[in-house]
């Protein structure tokens, strides 16, 4: 009889914090500058330079810890993790081992099989490394230290997850929580959120954990789910063949759907961690802790609850809108401008989602303002523009946040309310489409749709489809008679 296996998963999640400056110097954290332009003696490891902690990093770490129900370490320290690699200018990374800022927390996740708690072992602060660029043409490697010293937190979970669904739910939960806090935009593709998966399998009912592996290079939720499935199968195959799982770090190749050994436990480095003597211990005062606690935002669950109470929109809409901080902000701010909630929701659920998908835009990067969305909706309400035109205008707004009012004015997109022009256009369409006309007169009522479309096209969308429909019916009925 085939044995049944259970998968045991724990996650190490790195999140890049949204501070303006780096963790130990005043350099900008902005993405995409020319190589080595966001650097100084501190983040390039020049001799004699010294680190000074950016207090905002500590504040974000504490805020995330509180949101994840952690105990906050009131007296915490930074440690040096020593290893030689050129992306690490000092050849040690400043991190936290002995006294991390947060410990012993949990988050609640919901999957199809219900709600459960995933334990948070610890959250610690650390600095990011630079980037190596291999120039194959010149056969050399260059280093860009712009990322060096960008603040990170590492969130280490307990081995509490049992399948990919739970892992994704946990990551979604963390991502939303942190986005709501404004502590990071948490984009997996851009690397501002990175997850390493620790996975082992054991026979159902076994007390001890199996030997685990750590999987790296997971750049999307899809890759994470696939890697979990792949690694589970690989380990089960090994055990079924009577072989042992080797404790090691593996690299996932999502293109090929397989993983490779990066390094095994035997050649694991001794990082010689010790407290960084250049940084004084950090004391989190009662007062400051209370300030951070008081500043915690309304998280998703509370927000959903409130939307249900306050707005008459479907649960499905609430779920989607609160699924991204920026989306929820846009919704609330547009509604606050006096726009009907359902209409705002329709624009977000419809056109916004469609364009996001089409242009692969993350909700965090939505650029149009609530003011402009509100204006657009009121233009439609006032029948100043048609829905067709509104969609057109929105597409431009989505790309570069233009003012819909002046755009409509400029481009002459206002609905034509000139009865004479509309009547002559409809008459021309009727004259030019005898087949559709006779179809309609012959009882095929749907044929009118084509005639409406032709009229709208001739009017360049600037006619009110309701009026067009009515006028067509009126003129056609005369023909019938």
């Amino acid at each position: 009889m085939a044995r049944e296996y259970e998968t045991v998963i724990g996650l190490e999640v790195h999140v890049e914090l949204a501070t303006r400056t780096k963790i130990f110097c005043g350099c900008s954290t902005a993405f995409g500058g020319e190589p080595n332009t966001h650097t100084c003696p501190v983040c390039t490891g020049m001799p004699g330079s010294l680190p000074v902690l950016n207090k905002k990093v500590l504040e974000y770490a504490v805020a995330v810890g509180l949101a994840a129900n952690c105990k906050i370490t009131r007296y915490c320290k930074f440690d040096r993790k020593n290893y030689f690699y050129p992306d690490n200018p000092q050849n040690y990374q400043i991190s936290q081992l002995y006294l991390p800022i947060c410990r012993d927390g949990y988050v609640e996740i919901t999957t199809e099989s219900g709600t459960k708690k995933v334990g948070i072992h610890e959250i610690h602060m650390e600095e990011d490394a630079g980037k190596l660029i291999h120039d194959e043409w010149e056969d050399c490697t260059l280093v860009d230290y712009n990322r060096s010293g960008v603040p990170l937190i590492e969130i280490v979970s307990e081995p509490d997850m049992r399948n990919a669904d739970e892992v994704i739910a946990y990551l979604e939960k963390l991502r939303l929580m942190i986005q709501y806090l404004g502590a990071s935009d948490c984009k997996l593709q851009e690397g501002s959120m990175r997850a390493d998966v620790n996975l082992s399998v054991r026979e159902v009912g076994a007390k001890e954990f199996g030997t685990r592996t750590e999987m790296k290079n997971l750049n999307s939720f899809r890759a994470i789910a696939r890697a979990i499935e792949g690694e589970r199968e690989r380990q089960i195959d090994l055990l079924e063949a009577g072989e042992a799982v080797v404790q090691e770090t593996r690299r996932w190749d999502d293109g090929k759907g397989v993983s490779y050994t990066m390094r095994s436990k035997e050649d694991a480095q001794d990082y010689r961690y010790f407290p960084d003597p250049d940084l004084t211990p950090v004391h989190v005062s009662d007062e400051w802790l209370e300030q951070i606690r008081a500043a915690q935002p309304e998280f998703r669950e509370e927000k959903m609850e409130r939307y249900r109470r306050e707005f008459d929109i479907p649960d499905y809409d609430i779920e989607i809108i609160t699924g991204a901080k920026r989306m929820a902000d846009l919704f609330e701010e547009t509604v606050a401008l006096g726009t009907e909630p359902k209409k705002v929701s329709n624009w977000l659920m419809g056109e916004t989602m469609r364009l996001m998908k089409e242009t692969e835009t993350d909700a965090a990067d939505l650029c149009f303002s609530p003011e402009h969305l509100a204006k657009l909706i009121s233009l439609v309400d006032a029948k100043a523009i048609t829905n067709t035109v509104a969609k057109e205008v929105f597409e431009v707004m989505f790309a570069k946040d233009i003012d819909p009012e002046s755009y409509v004015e400029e481009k002459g997109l206002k609905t034509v309310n000139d009865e004479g022009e509309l009547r002559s256009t409809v008459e021309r369409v009727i004259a030019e489409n005898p087949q559709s006309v006779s179809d309609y007169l012959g009882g095929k009522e749907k044929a009118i749709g084509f005639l409406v479309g032709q009229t709208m096209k001739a009017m360049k969308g600037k006619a009110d489809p309701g009026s067009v429909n009515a006028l067509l019916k009126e003129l056609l009925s005369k023909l019938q008679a």
Partner: protein
Amino acid sequence: MDLAQMTAVELSAAIREKKVTVREAVEASLDAIAKREESLNCYVTVDREGALQRADEVQKKIDDGTLTGPLAGVPVAVKDNMCTKGMLTTCSSKILGNFVPTFTADAVIRLEEAGAVILGKTNMDEFAMGSTTETSAYGVTRNPWNEGHVPGGSSGGSAAAVAAGECFFALGSDTGGSIRQPASFCGVVGMKPTYGTVSRYGLIAYGSSLDQIGPLCKDVTDCAAILEIIAGHDPKDSTSMKRDDTDFTSALQEDVAGMKIGIPRDYFGEGLDPEVKASVLAAAELLKAKGAVVEEFDLSLVDYAIPAYYTIAAAEASSNLERFDGIKYGYRAEDCEELHKMYKKTRSQGFGAEVKRRIMLGSFVLSSGYYDAYYLKALRVKALIKKAFDDAFSRYDVILGPAAPTTAPELGKSLQDPIQMYLGDIYTISVNLAGLPGITVPCGVDSKGLPIGVQLIGDCFREKKLLRMAYTYEKARGPFGLDKEGR
């Protein structure tokens, strides 16, 4: 006027009074350098042109009243482990043989702003690891009192330069005695302030939790004046303290009546040269005659200071020196095929034997399985030593003892037995472990004609007590110095 006889404070007064120009002062130092440098080797870099040019700039600022302070126009030498923008900074190591910093150390900036003129960078033990200035990659520095002897270390170049008149004062750094011991060996005043008093920004770290910059100079008045200028909070150094009592020159009073001096018996036992012992105890007698109360006591844990110090300092050094890897600056070995081979070859060729010894020692005590037994235990000893001093300072204003067990050893003797050399730090390293201020003042010469220093140790932030006592002692002792001794 004999410029060589002048202290820094006297010189700046003479400059302000227009008896001397800054250029003349700089030329006096450069002349001394020309005369003695070939045999003494106090400097790694002498910036002749830069110093002369700067002299004229400073003169203008003194003339127009912009610069009025007690170091304006005074030529200074800076230990070669402090970054100086645009000027070679080697730490006396091959691995930084071509390193020109892009910024200047905070303490040096403060000197520049006060109008001091930087002559160049002084020789030292490589990365400040050593007690003789013999581990320098750029040759040994010789003791101006007797060129067959070492000047002490690691700030040996700074101490020798001051003693030989190759500068009017110098900056050194002190991790385990590296200012106070060479001051003792070269017959000058040297002071390590309370940890956190002088910014470490721009000081190339050896043992970060122990390193402090301080003055090496001709007398206690200079010492107070220099410290007053280089001390101060620096937001770029997290370990820098905010103090509102850095008006150190106000402590230059000839008055020790009623001050209590503790003499640790443990500092006068086995291993202490009888001549040094007699000279240091005579200094205590002199202070007693001036009204101080002198008492012997037992300072516990003295035997544990050396192992604790070498564990902590080496651990920090092993990490601090990781950045010297041939990638970003400094020396890179040639003909390297692959990254880790390049690291190994660069570091094998770039570092000297003593530095390698301490990197290995430090890496060992931090490695997994040994961390608790060595590094953590050493930290516990450090805390206990601090407690022992706290206890002593509840009873005494100042602790008095020798700065080193002997006078300056002969060249070439010390490195043959590194353990013996480490043991020579016995009287100075506890001060670093406890973060205390300490000052060495010359108190005599031995039968070989080599100077002896007396060390005064104070409680944290009690530099003023030290300076007052050192000043009183100095006045009572009378003139001292290479020239004054008639050599």
